[in-house]
């Protein structure tokens, strides 16, 4: 089931008097499915944050439509279902985290008990429990980011929209957020996020959309990118027919055509059955590759190609 559907949306900004309009998003179409982690990547100024802000109703598209569970955005009260973390969340300096979460819970219709329980749980997970009564102005950048995540998740939304969730976090903070996103995914929540940290996007996402200059350049499915599994063996193999492709994928192999080369990524648990299958089917192994081309390499390649 589709949770969010962006259909041919365009948005141009007016930078000021006598200046040409800047096209932030142009005929962008993609969808986010229920229960999946959808990562949106792209260079600075590609239109990622604009897309997220249009979804939240902070800005309106010039053309096109955004559907939320099949209904136009304007006709649907979405804010109870969405938890949003903006890039660099600026929170109220003189409030403490407990007060901020109380505000969040009350606006979302939670009672005091639910606010307390959810708040304590999130603060424990994100290691903010000891800082809950400290003014937010004394928080470090990473702590503010984690506080923003608590703010986004307090009302237990079914869709979580994160704009650069790992920004400003140290490795421990990143791990916390990573684990939290995986936990949310395990709970069946839909996660739509954008990030510059491609390694994290690659590890977290089921599907990835690459946008450049406001257009969707490519949509990667799960088999297109590696999961950063060091024990994966990558082989160059001869051509396959459709049945062989399907059977190899069923055994856990991932296939990718790179120019004239057909690459097969074999995860650790599938070494033996895939090897047997290759022998049985007399599929020639032409060589090996030390690594699967990472999302970062693909990203750089596509962006350079677009710029040329």
């Amino acid at each position: 089931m589709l949770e969010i559907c962006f259909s041919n949306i365009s948005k141009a900004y007016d930078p000021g008097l006598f200046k040409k309009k800047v096209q932030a998003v142009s005929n962008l179409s993609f969808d986010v499915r229920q229960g999946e982690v959808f990562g949106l990547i792209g260079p600075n100024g590609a239109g990622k944050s604009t897309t997220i802000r249009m979804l939240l109703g902070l800005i309106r598209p010039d053309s096109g439509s955004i559907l939320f569970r099949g209904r136009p955005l304007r006709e649907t009260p979405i804010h109870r279902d969405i938890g949003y973390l903006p890039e660099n969340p600026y929170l109220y300096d003189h409030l403490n985290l407990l007060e901020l979460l109380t505000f969040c819970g009350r606006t979302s219709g939670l009672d005091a008990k639910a606010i307390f329980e959810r708040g304590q749980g999130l603060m424990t997970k994100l290691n903010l429990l000891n800082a809950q009564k400290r003014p937010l102005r004394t928080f470090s950048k990473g702590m503010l980011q984690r506080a923003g995540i608590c703010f986004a998740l307090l009302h237990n939304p079914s869709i979580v929209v994160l704009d650069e969730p790992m920004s400003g976090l140290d490795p421990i903070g990143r791990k916390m957020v990573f684990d939290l996103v995986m936990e949310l995914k395990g709970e069946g929540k839909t996660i739509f996020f954008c990030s510059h940290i491609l390694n994290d996007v690659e590890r977290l996402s089921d599907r990835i959309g690459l946008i450049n200059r406001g257009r969707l350049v490519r949509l990667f499915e799960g088999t297109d990118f590696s999961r950063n599994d060091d024990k994966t063996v990558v082989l160059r193999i001869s051509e396959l027919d459709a049945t062989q492709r399907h059977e190899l994928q069923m055994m856990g192999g991932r296939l990718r055509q790179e120019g004239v080369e057909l690459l097969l990524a074999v995860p650790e648990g599938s070494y033996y059955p895939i090897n047997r299958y290759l022998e049985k089917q007399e599929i020639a192994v032409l060589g090996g590759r030390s690594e699967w081309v990472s999302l970062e390499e693909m990203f750089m390649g596509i962006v350079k190609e677009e710029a040329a």
Partner: protein
Amino acid sequence: MRGMLSLAVITFKEGIRNRSLFGIALLALFLFGLNITVAGFFMRDIGKVTVDINLSALNFAGLLLIFFVGINLMAKDIDRKTIHLVLSKPLSRSQYICGKYFGIQFFITASLMLLMVFSCLTVALLLQLYPNYFDGFSWGIFFVATFFIFVKLWLLSAVVIFFSSLTSSSLITLIFSLATYVAGVTIEEVVFYLKTELAAQERIISESLKSFIEVISWVVPNFAAFDFTMEAAHGLAINTDRLMVSFGYGVLYSAILLLLASLIFSRREFN
């Protein structure tokens, strides 16, 4: 409603914990102290000068609170994009406007109530020290004059909210609000002057300028309507009708400004 009240509460807390508040309170307390120290220099006018200084100090402190703290309570939300986070919650833009307004109103009222206690103590002390020089002084009129300082500041808060809904910078909001206040305080006197014979002899004042000022006088809030300092200082009786009209004017004007701010804000985009 719940969301709006929650926003008002955090706006109030954000304002009341601002360090600028201590500076403004100290300045007001200094003025009250100065009043006690120099009161003896004014001979027979001690009562009038005391009331005048106290009401002016309250008014001045209120203006500083709005211009240095109140403006930031909404304009900074937009400036720093905190509004993205707030509007991602189930809170309509009209509720946001009203929540911010009531938060600023609570903050101004609470801060000035505290200063009012010190102001009353100052007046009471001088009343004890110089009882013969407070002819006609009435606590009732003094409180009425103080109450209308509050009404004036509530209206000014609505002006601040209105300009914050239009602009993206707290500095521009400050400039517009300050200009509106200065125009609102003086416009009544300007219009009055233009109607005198002396003004009629001035060739430089064209008919179109007069018409323009007449229009401005209807658009800009008349802050002079809330000034009861003279009545309080001289112990003059105040007409109930005037009180009702002034209060009604303040409430109605604030409501119109908030309505306009809500309309503008609901159409606004936040990049």
